């Protein structure tokens, strides 16, 4: 019986997240369109509202082309690895008090582990396609993810030190319900490092070098088509949401808000995620792409030292005060 309930919960979460992914693409196109004084999708449904569904149906029925010289099993598995790793990390996110599929004690590093795994999908896709563009995209993604994962992990160490736990629900509870209790204030440096590393981890502009359209066609996904291509995009958008959720939980106080909305315990959590997603899109509409050496320089020479300094500072302050 318990298993059945859990299964239903998983299905509901999956459906809700997939719907969010579909409409995240819609809002991305709409918002970027309006920021560029265009309109974005307008033709399918009222103001293009059915566009993501049309896109989904289209990519589902498109031919799944596998290049002749590709490493077939790995080529076919790579997008699945990406998507599964991202979907798995959804399980540990607390949406509201008690609204979590798996309330495990190592939630935070579990998500870090899963996000490092999803980079395998990208790397293997780049290698297995047996094409120059995809290979370059895969190599770039590899170096980028390794570099920024360190910065991201280190930036979250400050939060772990303050809350004294790795359980995501307990991290939210440790911040209390007050506005000033949010870790964004004591951990402002970590928040900055986290935000930059978050963009790099999800391969978003201005760090979208693995899929740089202007140089690498579509980077690691160049040889993919149909549903498998769509899977990479689903993984990217779920990755954005998971990273937003981590930012919300660790720095912005999770589901707590100025007042409780009756009947909708996850209201503030979802709202904060939407704000994060909007900032993701907003940055994409504004900033150009980094050069590769600048990317590495930013990661290794600025973010990692900043995160280390933040850990030392947090440790000292904590030792002095508490």
């Amino acid at each position, binding site marked *: 019986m318990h298993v059945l309930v859990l299964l239903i919960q998983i299905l509901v979460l999956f459906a809700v997240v997939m719907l969010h992914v579909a409409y995240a693409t819609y809002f991305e196109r709409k*918002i970027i*369109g*309006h*920021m*560029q*004084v*265009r*309109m974005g999708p*307008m033709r399918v449904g009222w103001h293009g509202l059915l566009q993501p569904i049309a896109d989904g149906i289209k990519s589902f029925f498109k031919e799944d082309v596998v290049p002749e010289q590709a490493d077939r099993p790995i080529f076919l598995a790579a997008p699945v690895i990406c998507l599964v790793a991202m979907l798995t990390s959804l399980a540990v996110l607390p949406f509201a008090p008690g609204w979590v599929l798996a309330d495990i004690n190592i939630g935070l590093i579990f998500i870090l582990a899963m996000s490092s795994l999803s980079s395998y999908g990208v790397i293997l896709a780049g290698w297995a396609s047996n094409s120059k563009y995809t290979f370059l995209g895969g190599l770039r993604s590899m170096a980028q993810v390794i570099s920024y994962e360190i910065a991201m992990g280190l930036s979250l160490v400050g939060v772990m030190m303050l809350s004294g736990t790795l359980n995501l629900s307990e991290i939210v509870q440790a911040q209390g319900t007050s506005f000033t209790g949010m870790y964004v204030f004591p951990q402002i440096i970590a928040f900055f490092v986290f935000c930059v590393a978050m963009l790099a981890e999800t391969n978003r502009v201005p760090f979208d070098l693995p899929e740089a359209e202007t140089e690498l066609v579509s980077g690691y996904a160049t040889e993919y088509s149909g549903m498998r291509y769509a899977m990479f995009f689903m993984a990217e958008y779920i990755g954005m949401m998971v990273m937003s959720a981590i930012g919300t939980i660790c720095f912005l106080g999770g589901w707590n808000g100025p007042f409780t909305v009756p009947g909708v315990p996850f209201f503030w959590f979802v709202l904060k995620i939407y704000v994060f997603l909007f900032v993701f899109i*907003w*940055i994409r*509409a*504004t*900033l150009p792409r980094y050069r590769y050496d600048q990317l590495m320089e930013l990661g290794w020479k600025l973010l990692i030292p900043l995160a280390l300094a933040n850990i030392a500072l947090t440790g000292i302050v904590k030792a002095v005060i508490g």
Partner: protein
Amino acid sequence: MFVKYKPKRNLLETILHTEILQGMALTLRRLFSRPITRQYPDEEIPVALGFRGQHALVRDPETGGSLCVACMRCATVCPSRCIHIRYHEDDGKRVVDSYDIEALRCVYCGYCEEVCPVNALVLTEIFEYAAYSRQPFHFDRDGLLANWDRFCRERNISPQEYVNPFWRPRGLPENRLPAGKRLQVPEDWTMEGQVVGSRYREALPNDGTR
């Protein structure tokens, strides 16, 4: 040449990334501005005067045929050689046998309508004439006359009165125009307002003759 593309910033500006914030503010402002997109099939796109679209032979209101006198100027001036005319002489007068235009080869330069002494060949303002094969783009004389009828019908134009100032040769003064080109043009149109050929007109002697 030394291009200074990175302006000096003070420490505070470097730390706070003011330039990025400025850019973000700009995009956020644009988010709430009116988009300039025209929703084409739903919204009419205003066609500017002088637009060079589908070819047509002007239908002579008296005879019902074309005004063409088979002077061959259009076929001669055409840079892509897409106009083919056949004629025979009948009692010292040229009679057009066939008049064909391959629209797919045309570059829409508009020279043909400029050189035509009687304003017989025109490029109309119609641009929606896509088709699924090549054949519909080979206009013969009847097709070209039908194009003119379509133009008059769709744009609500009286064939007797309509004249497009851009059909005039560029830079020529009024008194040197052939008779067919001296038709009355709209009153708000001036030679100075015609942008194309203005350089050439400036280079002319002041009395307007060559």
